[in-house]
């Protein structure tokens, strides 16, 4: 758990945008693993299993009734603003904030792929296994997500 705690919490935070929600989800992930570790037969990597549970719990929470899309977006904005890089310029801080807002505006299926691949460096195959998706679907969603982010951040590139 010590090995993965930061990564699991980070994925949940980037997906949900709220530290309290992220901590709850991360805690639930490890509790489920604790209860089910006897059934883990090593056919998949432990990390893939953890990412699969984390992704599913995050998506379920985002789809839960009563949780508006705007809530997540606003929370992600707070996350960005609340964690400025101490050595960064004001412009860099703005770009970071804009990036987090842009990520928050992605639909959940594209967002999870970007979070796993670009923010946490998972391989395509690992993402496909965790989300139980074909490899080509993962590639396609990631490409569309990156193109969408590029469009949203256009003003910073001129």
């Amino acid at each position, binding site marked *: 758990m010590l090995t993965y705690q930061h990564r699991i*919490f980070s994925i949940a935070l980037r997906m949900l945008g709220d530290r309290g929600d992220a901590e709850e989800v991360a805690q639930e992930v490890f509790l489920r693993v604790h209860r089910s570790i006897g059934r883990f037969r090593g056919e998949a990597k432990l990390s893939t299993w953890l990412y699969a549970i984390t992704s599913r719990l995050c998506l379920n929470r985002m789809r839960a009734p009563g949780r508006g899309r705007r809530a997540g977006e606003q929370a992600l904005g707070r996350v960005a603003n609340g964690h400025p890089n101490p050595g960064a310029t004001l412009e860099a801080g703005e*770009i970071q904030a804009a990036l987090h807002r842009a990520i928050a505006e992605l639909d959940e299926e594209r967002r999870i792929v970007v979070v796993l691949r670009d923010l946490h460096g998972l391989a395509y195959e690992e993402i496909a296994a965790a989300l139980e998706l074909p490899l080509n679907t993962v590639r396609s969603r990631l*490409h569309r997500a990156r193109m969408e982010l590029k469009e949203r951040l256009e003003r910073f590139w001129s």
Partner: protein
Amino acid sequence: MNCREARELFSTKADDLLTAEQRAALDGHLQGCADCRHEWERFRQTVSLLHSVGEARAPAGFARRVMEASRREPWHRRLLRGVFLPLHVRLPLEVAALVLVSTLAIFLYRQTPELQRAVEAPQSGVVASAPDAPAKSAEAEQVQGYGQTAAAPPAAPAPAEERQGVLQGAKERDEFARKQEAAPAPAEPPAVGGRLDAAREVQAPRGQDVQAPRAKDVQKSVAGKPELKAAARAQGPFHLMGLLRPKSPATLDTQLNDLVKQAGGILVRDADRVGPGSIVEVVIPRDAYPRLEEGLRQIGDFTIETRAKTFPDQVRIGLRISP
């Protein structure tokens, strides 16, 4: 390669996963297309920016809180987890439980004659059901003998008329028992004598359900024969138990009714009509018994199963009709 095809490869290029052929084609297109070069530059910066986002750190004490939570999982969660086991565990358990319960039920059914009778009773029409409290009382008395009537378990309350009849019967039995005890002991105990073995002597063969028809079913025709009615309600063991295999089951009811009437007795049925599987009680004066027996042998094949050594004035005969 056109612009659309080139831009579709941007992600693969950003991840450095292009084949040599794809790389050559894309690089060739980008050299000649300023728009795509511009787009690629923006795309590359976006991906770089994404990669620059650092991993967030879990709050301090997170691991400790998880460990504590795993140790103090609430009871209702444990219960729910126990009830809602995963299907691959729950399904075999449920199948095993079903098989076990079924096997147990079949075993109990086979080992419990009462259950078998309870199932078969509605089909055969034989009165053997639990609500028949007076009959059960009679059965208990048969097993225990007259001298032990007081120890019999209390029966359900009976209608006033029946209670009176039972009391009358009890008085008669007590009187009869006193006479028997006062008399010299015979070599073979009589069927009616207040002794357990005597009572057993006139019981039906083991495993067969022989129960006296209910006293309340006594026909109205006995209105003029109070002594027979009292005997019918005596609820004691039969003085004679016989098996009748009728030649003509269809006319059995009429033939039997006529015969009993001619013998001056009464017929107590356990059902509307006497038929195969029925048990009837016949109460006749002792003198009329030879006539009755002769008549029964004409109706069918009549076999005496048990018989008391001596008959009282009013003879109670249990007649089983062969199924």
